[in-house]
């Protein structure tokens, strides 16, 4: 599939560069970010207009100023230091020289993207009722017109003026007292702002909502667990659907031709005791395709039925087109799932096309023709692979049309011993149904959500890798292993570079064709957001957060 795209891409790039230099004005241009601009975000690569860069969520930039030949000329351009010790997981937006960044947890900052000078800061103090399971995080804002949209940890959606920094409207999406939270960057489609809720560890009933961008009025709600009388409700026995989780805490993707928006759905609850919720538990651990105007379900595909492992399917849906061999186009969705399998789906209808393990897996012996896993539960006390944090997680993968490869940050050979127990639901309290125990016994260390400065576990507990997968075959093309697991997103570029980081604090740049490490810089803190790139005044920048700061690099001037 890459060959066809490659020739067009090269000619595209030749015509694009002069345009870019003209378009990438110094901060000051106050052009509105229309829906048309969002649709054609790949035509203005000097900007970064949505969480994943474009609606197809490839995290691929056609900016190619930074190359394998000059990468050693990269220098630190500026740093933004957050006044917060919460994890820094946001991807900034850049619009015509101005960067919009969330400072953990829910402040919004507008900066000069060339040097980090702050124009304004919108400060939001979340309610103390907010108690997300896994860190008070926020992954960024969305933009439409000259309005930014912020989803807060205490369940509010707030419209903020992108020029003046003042709030315009605020609407309540979810009740933090019931365990709901919002951690994602919203997704704008047409005139609506779409968000999904977190809270799968608190016995919530998940949903995805759309709000009118101008007024904040709710347009629709899609419950990720079907109610009585709705198809799929029968996949929950007893009253388990009421407290079945199925959150949606990561930004979806959008195909404007099919007019479908795709969202990954989180784990069923209680997390580790499937006996309390017999059935497939739709649409937990699924991808759902929704009509963005109505929220109506077009199709779904479930990766892990009746999940006992907390294998949230909360990954970024990566949309890729490929020739079908008969003169037509295959509209694909590439998905490296937390459950350890890499899937290729037909995004028109959710049909399963291919699936392969990308890390060691023993909870299933494989996938059948429909993509359903053949589950092989491990005996009590035995280690299940992948472990609770998964073969990958929310970390943005990347697809490069230049190489035709899909790239993912993986936790390899990492397992957990799952222990189930009966859980009683109490509103607003954790609803877990057991625990993922450490395979090495009490006192030993295994990778978790955070790490300190010392890596205090052995390689038997697992390691990290960037893996390049050929989506045509599902085969691994190359892998770059890391001592610690990795939680970084990935960016690829038209100059065949791959930008990523790791938990050890290294920002490294690889050759996207071969995986060769071309350049690295220790930044001294865990890298968790995805690197992104933009251009101002003809200079390409790459930004990523490490520890509690955002670091921005560019070639020496």
């Amino acid at each position, binding site marked *: 599939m890459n060959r066809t795209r490659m020739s067009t891409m090269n000619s595209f790039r030749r015509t694009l560069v002069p345009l870019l230099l003209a378009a990438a004005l*110094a*901060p*000051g*241009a*106050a052009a509105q970010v229309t829906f048309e601009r969002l649709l054609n975000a790949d035509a203005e690569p000097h900007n970064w207009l949505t969480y994943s860069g474009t609606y197809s969520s490839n995290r691929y930039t056609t900016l190619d100023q930074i190359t394998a030949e000059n990468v050693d000329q990269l220098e630190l351009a500026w740093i933004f230091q957050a006044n917060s010790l919460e994890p820094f997981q946001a991807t900034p937006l850049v619009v015509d020289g*101005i960067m919009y960044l969330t400072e953990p947890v829910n402040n919004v900052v*507008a900066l*000069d993207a*060339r*040097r980090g*000078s*702050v*124009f*304004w800061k919108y400060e939001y103090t979340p309610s103390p009722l907010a108690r997300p399971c896994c860190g008070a995080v926020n992954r960024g804002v969305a933009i439409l017109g000259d309005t930014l949209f912020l989803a807060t940890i205490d369940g509010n959606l*707030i419209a903020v*003026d992108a*020029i*003046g*920094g*003042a*709030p*315009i*409207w*605020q609407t309540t999406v979810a009740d933090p007292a019931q365990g709901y939270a919002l951690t994602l960057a919203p997704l704008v489609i047409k005139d609506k702002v779409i968000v999904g809720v977190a809270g799968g560890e608190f016995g919530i009933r998940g949903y995805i909502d759309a709000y009118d961008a101008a007024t904040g009025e709710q347009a629709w709600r899609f419950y990720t667990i079907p109610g009585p009388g709705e198809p799929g409700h029968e996949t929950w026995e007893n009253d388990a659907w009421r407290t079945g989780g199925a959150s949606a805490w990561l930004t979806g993707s959008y195909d404007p031709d099919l007019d479908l928006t795709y969202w990954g759905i989180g784990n069923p609850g209680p997390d580790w005791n499937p006996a309390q919720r017999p059935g497939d538990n739709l649409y937990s651990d699924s991808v759902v395709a929704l009509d963005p105007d109505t929220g109506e379900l077009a199709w779904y595909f479930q990766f892990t039925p009746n999940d006992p492992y907390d294998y949230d399917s909360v990954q970024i849906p990566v949309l890729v087109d490929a020739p079908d061999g008969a003169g037509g186009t295959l509209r694909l969705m590439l998905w490296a799932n937390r459950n350890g399998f890499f899937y290729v789906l037909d995004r028109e209808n959710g049909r399963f096309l291919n699936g392969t393990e990308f890390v060691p897996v023993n909870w299933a012996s494989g996938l059948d023709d429909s993509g359903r896993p053949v589950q092989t539960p491990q005996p009590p006390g035995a280690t299940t692979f992948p472990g609770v944090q998964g073969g990958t997680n929310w970390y943005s993968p990347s697809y490069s049309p230049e190489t035709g490869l899909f790239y993912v940050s993986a936790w390899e050979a990492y397992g957990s011993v799952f222990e189930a127990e009966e859980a009683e639901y109490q509103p607003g309290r954790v609803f877990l149904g057991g625990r993922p125990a450490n395979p090495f016994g009490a006192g030993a260390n295994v990778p978790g959500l955070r790490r300190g400065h010392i890596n205090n576990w052995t390689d038997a507990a697992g390691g990290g890798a960037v893996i390049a997968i050929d989506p045509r075959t599902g085969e691994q093309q190359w892998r770059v292993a890391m001592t610690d697991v990795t939680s970084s997103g990935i960016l690829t570029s038209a100059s065949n570079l791959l930008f990523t980081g790791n938990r050890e604090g290294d920002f490294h740049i690889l050759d996207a064709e071969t995986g060769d490490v071309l350049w690295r810089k220790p930044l001294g803190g865990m890298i968790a957001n995805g690197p992104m790139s933009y251009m101002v005044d003809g200079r390409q920048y790459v930004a990523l957060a490490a520890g509690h700061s955002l670091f921005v690099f560019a070639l020496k001037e």
Partner: protein
Amino acid sequence: MLNSAARRTTGWKAGALGLVAALAAGAAPAAAQDHVGQYEQADIEFGARLYDANCVQCHAESGDAVAGVDLAGGVYSRAGSDPELMGLLRAGIPGTAMPPNEFTSGELTGLVAYLRTMRDVDLSAVTLGDEARGEALFAGRGACASCHRVFGEGSRVAPDLSAIGAVRTAAYLQESLLDPTGSMLAVNRPLRAVLADGTVLTGRRLNEDTYTIQMIDQDERLRSLEKADLRELTAGAESTMPPATDALDDQEVADVLAYLLTLKGL
């Protein structure tokens, strides 16, 4: 609202009479009782209005309807200093009918100003007018919205006022209306920058460091400028806002002030 102020005057008289009666009966006023001159008139009036809306049901206009409490006489069961009183107004008194309240700092300033002076304040002079008229003047003849923005309406050239009533006291806002230059925050100084190509930018300062300066210009664009690249850069000491009295009479200024005090953000 003028009626309200008039009523308040009557209430004060009643309260004062009550105090006189209390004094005659030998009750000792608190030693820390303060005086009108110590508080701003606009804050006192704002506080009187808040008292009317929030306190009068239990405490009555006279301030002595709750047993053991005489607000006009400075007799409180729990609070001594102004900060203590503000804390009490916010937290309420558990176990009593005094509830917690979500007052902003500006509202607390007003309430305390009124409580400390209700014994002998004269509320006959109009400082705080009619909110609805003020809103109309803000968008209309006062032309405030040609520079200021409220909840997405109006210009961004001057500071957004959507939450100004929550972060400023009535007295401060009144001063801002009457003497914009005297009350201008340093960060908001008007800038004039001449770029290398001769382009002249004017606007409001947003931020500044040794090497760069950030502004919003006359076209509502965010600008970040390298000082070394500029031919000229001046930060004016005079506010570009005219005193409200240039366009409005005293009653209308009072109306706009009343409107500004209703702007408490989202």
